[in-house]
């Protein structure tokens, strides 16, 4: 039998990207600003979402997709706040993909939402490789993780539209070089918007909320 070479030249995750585009146009149809929130476990994704919900509850109709390896703890917390939420359990999977998000969208009242948060699985290695249908990618890097994270996970920082440096209230207890961190992040990603915040004390949150609110308005107008 003769061997024949077939040139493919395609991205392995091309099928995911197609599905993500379909999710995006579905969400665009409703004028929903969709934010993919990525970080390591414990950096403050759920805290950020909860704190943002509290502040914007009167200004925007929000919905949440919670991605976790297991448990519905995070979804339960959001649910208690009266916000529509769908929990995805990845059963060991380390990231969300566009297919999972498509199913989750079916469980949300999209006609009654202006802003959708998708909380990705806590992981800095691969979630950025899987588009979900989001408008913006927001990454949280928390101070206790150290200022060397951009060197260790450069693709994650390069792919984010916004980086929130969280837990700045802990700075007095840490050797964290804020200027060095900012320089590395903006070096990797010159267009990035960086907000130092503390979800716990509320410090710096206003700038993030202002940015988010104007992004929601911008999406509605389109």
């Amino acid at each position: 039998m003769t061997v024949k070479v077939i040139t493919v030249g395609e991205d392995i995750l091309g099928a995911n990207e197609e599905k993500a585009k379909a999710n995006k146009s579905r969400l665009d149809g409703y004028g929903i600003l969709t934010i993919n929130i990525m970080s390591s476990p414990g950096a403050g994704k759920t805290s950020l979402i909860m704190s943002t919900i509290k502040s914007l509850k009167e200004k925007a109709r929000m919905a949440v997709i919670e991605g976790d390896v297991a448990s519905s703890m995070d979804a339960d917390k959001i649910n208690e706040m009266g916000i529509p939420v769908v929990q995805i359990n990845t059963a060991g999977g380390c990231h969300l993909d566009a297919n999972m998000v498509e199913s989750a969208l079916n469980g949300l009242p999209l006609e009654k939402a202006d802003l959708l948060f998708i909380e990705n699985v806590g992981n800095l290695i691969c979630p950025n490789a899987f588009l979900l249908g989001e408008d913006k990618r927001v990454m949280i890097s928390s101070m206790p993780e150290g200022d060397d994270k951009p060197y260790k996970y450069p693709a994650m920082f390069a792919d984010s539209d916004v980086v929130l440096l969280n837990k700045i209230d802990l700075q007095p207890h840490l050797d964290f070089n804020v200027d060095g961190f900012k320089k590395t992040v903006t070096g990797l990603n010159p267009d990035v918007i960086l907000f130092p915040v503390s979800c716990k004390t509320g410090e710096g949150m206003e700038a993030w909320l202002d940015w988010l609110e104007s992004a929601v308005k911008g999406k509605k107008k389109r």
Partner: protein
Amino acid sequence: MHEFSITESMLSLALEKANEASAGRITRINLVVGELSGVVSECVQFYFDAISKGTIASGAELSFETKPTTVRCHKCDNVFTPGDHNWACPECKETSIEIVSGRECHMESIEVE
């Protein structure tokens, strides 16, 4: 764990291309994987052997071409391999850079009979 979903996507892409060419069997799949893609080739091979069973790709050899991480300096255009703790340009010390290679995760070609 992301290797599992990557392997699934890779297998279905290979099967789709082989099917289009009315091939009877896939003997080799040529992949290009960057250092920053977070893809461990041994892992992909392991999953592939398991999930390709019963398909025309069963027994196919996976070939991985690994792309090293390189970055380009925004100031002087120098392309270099970044150090572990320092991503500044070795020529002009500029810290504004862009990733040129290392993020690849694609299928170059398949070999079929």
